[in-house]
């Protein structure tokens, strides 16, 4: 038997073209995973905010003063926006077959990405400026 396992496999993700739909799909996964992680913190925040009025006000205070908490909260919202928009696109194309050719699919992906970006910028302005 010839040795087979020392054969190289070419796979350089950064050098291989990935059209917009692929990029969206990967970001969709990344945002999904990030949401899952941040969700734990969000549940903690919810728990705190519901425990008493005082805690609720404390949390608000923290949100305004602790930058890190603010950043996390911001990422949470951006993640939700992105994940749900691209998610809706996937559902639409799965169920209704819209955006199944390359041109319309890319077009829709662009639109959703631009919308997400705009919303993220708006949120950023609202949060930090």
């Amino acid at each position, binding site marked *: 038997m010839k040795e087979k396992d020392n054969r*190289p496999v070419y796979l350089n993700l950064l*050098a*291989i073209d990935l*059209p917009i*739909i692929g990029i969206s799909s990967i970001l969709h996964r990344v945002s999904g995973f990030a949401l899952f992680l941040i969700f734990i913190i969000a549940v903690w925040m919810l728990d705190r905010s519901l425990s008493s009025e005082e805690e609720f006000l404390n949390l608000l205070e923290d949100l305004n003063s602790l930058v890190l908490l603010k950043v996390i909260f911001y990422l949470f919202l951006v993640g939700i926006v992105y994940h749900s928009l691209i998610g809706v696109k*996937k559902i639409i194309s*799965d169920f209704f077959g819209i955006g199944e050719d390359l041109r319309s*699919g890319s077009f829709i992906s662009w639109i959703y990405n631009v919308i997400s970006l705009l919303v993220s910028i708006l949120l950023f302005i609202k949060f930090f400026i």
Partner: protein
Amino acid sequence: MNSTIPTEELRSITLSVYRFDPGKDKKAYMQDIEIEVPVNKDLMVLDALVLAKKQETSLSFRRSCGEGVCGSDGMNINGKNGLACVTPLSEAIKGEKLVVKPMPGLPVVRDLIVDMKQFFDQLEKVKPYLITKDEAPEQERKQSPEEREKLDGLYECILCGCCSTACPSFWWNPDKFLGPAALLQSWRFIADSRDQATEERLDDLDDAFSLYRCHGIMNCVSVCPKGLNPTEAISNIRKKLINRKK
């Protein structure tokens, strides 16, 4: 009479090719080869490789028909999978450099030649041939023009492998996810009015990996040199699978 033969104007470009010789090299590396190409005539990437091979005779790649029919020269050209013989240099080249690598995700046998076994193993699983249960008729199995039309965009596949090796789902699970090329062929026979094994074919696809690993990324569609749409075929099968459960 003045009969000077016009000399071709040439310019030089750099071809950067992926090299690996299993007898010599422990690791693959990129080699730059300078070649001269005509200024006012477009070549195909395959022509450029042939020119490079004149200098570097050990450079290996597969090719046969030279016109996009046999499907043997699929490779990764400046980041995008395609057939070297039908990809014009002018389209592929960025600046003065052309980067040519083997199709991603498959073991490299030598230079640009990959081992397509995984690809064909997956094709075999979808039984890419007509399955019939009735007795064969005297003459042929008839099909109306409308029924025949359903196979357009499916039968043209030349099994070059460009699509499956551009598919992230296939990179991660080349043994479990069938990949766009095999799924396109699966649909080609499910959609064929003469085929009588639709249910069995669907049964075979009804698991978490074979088909459902497709995330509709459409890398396959964007690279297919024949302009086919495996994503659409996959979603047609998916619809059949879902409707069958109702």
